[in-house]
């Protein structure tokens, strides 16, 4: 049985903002299906009583004092901009 359908892959690609050609799409669908089938073995693990681990560290309450640090020079902030307009980053028409 297929775990993931071509339609779902299309939906995921949209969420991830990735374009795929039809050919790429069918290839990646079968690869994702293989991978998801493999990782599905974790459903066998008995995790009753096991809390989810986001962090291996047992640290908490890491804060920064509310002190101003030097910001970047504007030119440095914009230095890598693919396209800029004045002092701003330019993006094409928002759709």
């Amino acid at each position, binding site marked *: 049985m297929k775990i*993931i359908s071509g339609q*779902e*892959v299309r939906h*995921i*690609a949209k*969420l*991830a*903002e*990735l*374009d*795929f050609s039809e050919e790429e799409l069918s290839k*990646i669908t079968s*690869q*994702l299906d*293989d*991978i*998801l089938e*493999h*990782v*599905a*073995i*974790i*459903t066998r*693990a008995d*995790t009753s009583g*096991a*809390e*989810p*681990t*986001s*962090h*291996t*560290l047992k*640290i908490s309450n*890491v804060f*920064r004092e509310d002190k101003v640090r030097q910001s*970047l020079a504007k030119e*440095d*902030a914009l*230095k*890598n*901009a*693919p*396209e800029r307009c004045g002092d701003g*980053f330019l*993006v*094409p*028409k*928002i*759709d």
Partner: protein
Amino acid sequence: MRLNFLPAYELKNMLQKREISSEDIASQCLKATERLQGKLNAYIYFDKEHMLSQARAADAYLKEICGSFNKKDGKYFDFTGIPVAVKDNICTKDIKTTCASKILSDYVPVYDATVIQRLKSQKYVLSGKLNMDEFAMGSSNENSAFGPVKNPWDTERVPGGSSGGPAAAVAAGLVPCSLGSDTGGSIRQPASLCGVVGLKPTYGLVSRYGLVAFASSLDQIGPITRNVTDSANLLSAICGWDEYDSTSINGGLHDYCQFLYDNIKGLKIGVPQELMSGGVDAAIKESVNGVLKLAESMGAVVEMTSLPSFEYALSVYYIIAPSEASSNLSRFDGVRYGYRNRDATSLRSMYRSTRAEGFGPEVKRRIMIGTYCLSSGYYDAYYEKAQRVRTLIINDFKKAFGKYDVLISPSSPTTAFKIGEKSDDPLSMYMSDICTIPVNLAGLPAISIPSGLSENNLPIGVQIIADTLREDLIFKTAYSLEKAINFNKLPVHLYEQ
């Protein structure tokens, strides 16, 4: 005398005695690099003039403090004037940092990673930026927008990955040591395949600030060197709390040299049977067993043990790492930096074409897996379940470290494989990390040291794992075993061809 093959600690001694200059070292490293770059493709960036000018500045500094040799004022740093090469996912101010991706092929950071700042404060010499799998995703260094790196022992084979460049450069004598990053084995597996020493420190011991994130809860920067002493020195130079990284550990020890002593008498070693199973090449098992026998002969106690949840580790990793990556890599959108498809006339088409063209297939594959695992309706079954199984793996390690000081296993299930051999089969490629992944999931420190050569002259590595922040046990064990194994082999034949 080939300076580029000497250990960094010896170079330091020679620099202090003024027997050589930093410029001498830089020149020989450059010569080797110029000779082998075409063959190995280890570097993405190196600049002769820039390297020499750093070396000259270090020499000037060494000259300046010449009169205070015996002062204990800490002015003589381990890496003053010593070349270090850096994986190209660690940000270097004003020097391109590409992550071996088209999407960052022209990206020039405006800041230095914390590890770079620390090395700069020692007046180190940056030899260049090293090739890798794109965004550190891969186990063969074939996923680079700048072409694959070749294994110095056999240039038809992969150096491992994702720190293929850092391992190959050190093994081939282009530089005495390098910095890599390890998310699921990306330091230890290539170190093993290239016959060098690779350390993944405890999660949080080395600041991640400036390391371009792949999987934030797993990533850790670490040294790749030709010997354990250099590894301890380089770790000492880069570790420690950083106010810019909330996940960095405050406290701990910062001079790891003190643990470099040759004594493992009474050391309790556990061997996880799950990592000595069918999936591992016979020659590798044999090599690891050889190391274990040596350890016993030195007075260590060796026992087989079982960490049953390891069977899930690869699956847990291939859910958690891509999930985090899918979010971490969202920022590459063609707006603030990096590649942009300039023909797109609307925002969404710009996003989609930029990312489709900017990322390579493996990166896109992982973004897709991760996006799926986090998406509505699947989160509980994949991401959250994986986080729970991760807890089981951590608990297995906890139990094991209640009984053993260290765990020993192979670093990689195979020796270096042929370029192209696995590149079309993601799952079999993912298997390359089965020995190393559990360690990242538990945030533990582990080192890979060479244990010998296979029949066809390819390096084999052995992995030593310790409990959280027990780098002391890692170094003590690795240092003792390094002496006993006496590997001492380098792919010098490269220079003879």
